[in-house]
């Protein structure tokens, strides 16, 4: 099949044309586009273009009728029909404990200079925070500041849980689980969310953009997928040319009913895994199909690449509701200034590229990105030009629909807790509960045991 190289100029017009017919619209599932040869001939837009850029693209049901009837298609479109405008939440974990106090700097707090005598951000270097002269952004956050100025960033200082023990393992486990305290429950809060709103047969409804499943997405029943790079996702047997033949055989072996729950699970899981493979085929990259450009280049980092990969998958309309990724290095016990600046530059530049990419795909109104870390760091810096484990982390919520501004109380540095850490003004579970109800449309109590009634103004 002939495919045009990406970059065609008028894709927006084409997309509008599609959008115009959205009366009884269903989203285009990836494989449906196998049948779109006709569009490619006269529409000036390839199937690949559609997938790459026409995110949130809808085709009238009549147009779909003539397309492939493969089971994959049917399942995917049924999936998407149930939630054509579904909102998407992306969890981005800053692994190691991000120093919130040097991210959103409390410039006006007299104790900041005293406590951060070694590694404090000088007021003249900090970037202004619109409407909040008492704060400044870390100088590496020019991009994030731009997003904030556009009202696309909700900023939540000092979010955590009470009486944190400053253990990475415990804190990260509680945040991921959405439950505070020791537990052997292996699920994550977004995995449990999928158990409520998801299905057993659409793994791409929950994507770990990683090489191993993100614990946040661990579910009881719902299928999820782990795909770091959709451009090379495939099954492989050494000495076997092409995966079509054995994929068919595996799919056949994985079909059919059985009275054994275990065998049923094995078949369903294989069917799901090969379905993901099939769905991602159009996103493969090779010499003939290079990676399409994005409006703003992503940094060439793990985070930038991960977000770029995720945007391509969200763009293809697989019915994704939640996704998770993480990047590390925030445990800055020593030599913090240079390391932290590098990490925040990566974060800021990646987010700018991500938001622009989502906007071009028509997705920016449907995606919110929750940026969190297991704890903040000790207000008083240490002798190694670093900071030790603290409490009260900084949470950011980024997206067109995020309610821009500073949304939770900053407790100040005059009074600290018994471990000399920042006081916690907001439980992280309150943030989760708010996002579940105001964004994902899920009753919080179904996901978060014993959640109280407190909610926050986070979604515009």
């Amino acid at each position, binding site marked *: 099949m002939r495919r045009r190289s990406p970059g065609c100029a008028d894709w927006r017009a084409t997309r509008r044309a599609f959008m115009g017919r959205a009366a009884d619209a269903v989203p285009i599932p990836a494989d449906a586009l196998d049948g779109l040869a006709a569009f490619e001939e006269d529409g000036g837009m390839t199937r690949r273009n559609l997938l790459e850029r026409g995110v949130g693209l809808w085709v009238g049901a009549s147009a779909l009728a003539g397309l492939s009837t493969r089971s994959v298609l049917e399942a995917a479109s049924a999936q998407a029909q149930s939630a054509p405008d579904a909102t998407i939440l992306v969890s981005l974990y800053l692994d190691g404990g991000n120093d919130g106090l040097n991210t959103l700097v409390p410039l006006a707090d007299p104790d900041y200079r005293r406590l951060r005598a070694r590694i404090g951000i000088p007021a003249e270097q900090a970037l202004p925070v619109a409407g909040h002269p008492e704060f400044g952004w870390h100088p590496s956050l020019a991009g994030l500041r731009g997003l904030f100025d556009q009202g696309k960033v909700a900023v939540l200082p000092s979010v955590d849980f009470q009486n944190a023990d400053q253990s990475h393992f415990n804190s990260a486990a509680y945040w991921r689980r959405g439950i505070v305290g020791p537990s052997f429950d292996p699920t994550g809060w977004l995995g449990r969310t999928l158990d409520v709103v998801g299905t057993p047969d659409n793994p791409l409804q929950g994507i770990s953009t990683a090489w191993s499943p993100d614990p946040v997405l661990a579910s009881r029943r719902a299928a999820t997928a782990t795909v770091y790079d959709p451009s090379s996702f495939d099954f492989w047997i050494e000495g076997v040319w092409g995966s079509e033949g054995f994929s068919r055989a595996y799919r*056949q072996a994985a079909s059919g009913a*059985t009275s*054994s729950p275990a*065998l049923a699970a094995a078949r369903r899981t294989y069917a799901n895994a090969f379905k993901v493979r099939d769905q991602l085929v159009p996103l493969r990259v090779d010499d003939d199909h290079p990676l399409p450009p994005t409006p703003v280049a992503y940094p060439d980092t793990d985070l930038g690449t991960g977000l770029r990969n995720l945007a391509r998958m969200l763009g293809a309309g697989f019915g994704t509701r939640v996704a998770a990724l993480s990047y590390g290095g925030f445990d800055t016990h020593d030599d913090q200034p240079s390391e932290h600046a590098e990490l925040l530059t990566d974060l800021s530049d990646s987010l700018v590229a991500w938001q622009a990419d989502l906007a071009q795909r028509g997705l920016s109104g449907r995606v919110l990105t929750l940026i969190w870390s297991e704890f903040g760091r000790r207000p008083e810096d240490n002798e190694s030009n670093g900071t030790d484990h603290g409490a009260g982390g900084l949470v950011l919520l980024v997206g067109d629909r995020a309610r821009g501004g500073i949304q939770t109380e900053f407790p100040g540095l005059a009074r600290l807790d018994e471990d000399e850490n920042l006081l916690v003004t907001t439980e992280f579970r309150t943030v989760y509960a708010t996002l579940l109800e105001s964004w994902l449309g899920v009753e919080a109590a179904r996901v978060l045991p014993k959640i109280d009634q407190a909610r926050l103004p986070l979604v515009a």
Partner: protein
Amino acid sequence: MPRSTDRAKVERLLWRAGFGGRPAEIDRLARTGVPKAVETLLAPRGPALRGPAARIDGAPLDPVNAWGHEVLWWLDRAVRTQHPLVERMTFNWHDHFATSNDEVGDTRLMMAQYWTLRRGALGRFRNLTRAILKDRAMQRFLSLANSEKGSPNENFARELFELFTLGVNNGYTERDVREAARALTGFTFDWRTRRFGYDPDKHDDGVKRILGRVGRFTPQDVVDIAIAHKAHAPFLVEKLWGYFSPRACPPKMVRSLARTYVRANTDVRPVLREILTSKLFYAGLNEPDMVKPPFVYVAGMLRLTNTRVDDEGWRWRLHQMGQVPFHPPNVSGWEGGTAWLSTSAIRARFDAATAVLRKTVKDGSVSSRQTPQQALASALAATGRPRVSPRTAAALRRYAVTSVKGRTDRWEVEHYFPERQRVLRHLLLAGPDAQVC
């Protein structure tokens, strides 16, 4: 030839009470009948291992000094074992008394624990638990070492009741945990010399009240008191049942097993005999309902294909499947059941067969005259004749025909006939049927 039902039963027996059986093993045990086969498993004789030991890059494993080799070391033992039930129970006890080298940070101690578990694998549970109490890896893992009079650490006491002997909230109170923690004080560990010991001066020798009994209890008394508690026998036999069958253990069966266990003075052998000869254990032979744990799946695949452990990648693959021996996720062990089968884990299970089949069928090694039936027979022989469902059989038959259709050029024959063989073997080793037993 043994009767086919006996064969099917022994095949299940060897997967659930071992790491899978080669066709000859299955035939041999099936000829003797199930009860005798179970006796053979319960009292194995002869050398523990067979076949050539694992090698990495041409050198023997170095489990203590090379990261990841301890995992391969255990895998190698499971692959080569001739005492499958002993080896499998050792692994079950590792799940029961789950201890992780990620926290212990001392592979020698972990391997010593392996031997503790293995020695007690088919013996009295009371003796095994007493040995675990003194096991150094466990003492480090659950902060028993350096738990002192005046500030006892409750970690071990809590898990002893909750996970090891009674079950969560089953017949004990928070007060029992606190009092037991007092009785468990006195074990020491010196960070500098890495010496373990017991210091009577650090033991709280006051009077404690534990599970209704009062006395100046020692650490070992705590173990004995827990095991003498009436909630213990039903808890333990039901847990044991769960290692061999995914079906709920009927209350009548629990009572019977518990009686057997108590009468045998906590010896697990008669309990295992009763489980492994029960009707329910062999239910649904045509639609197996137990998901193979990753470690069993991998060891069995290597065993049935006579493949030696020679690849450090097995550690990573087991990790991707969710089960790395010596590295359970936490003290409650692995969750198991259908939870093993995530979309990511199944990819790793698929990749396991790819790794096993590497370089086994060379291009040009298969004649163009090989019929689909012959191809299938050859694949079955190379994979230990696993049980296949009608659905998989149909997929294999179809693939055996379509994959070489019209491939007549010489280069095509040289590649595609062996390719057919690779795929047939792969589907037999890693397909949906291969995930269950």
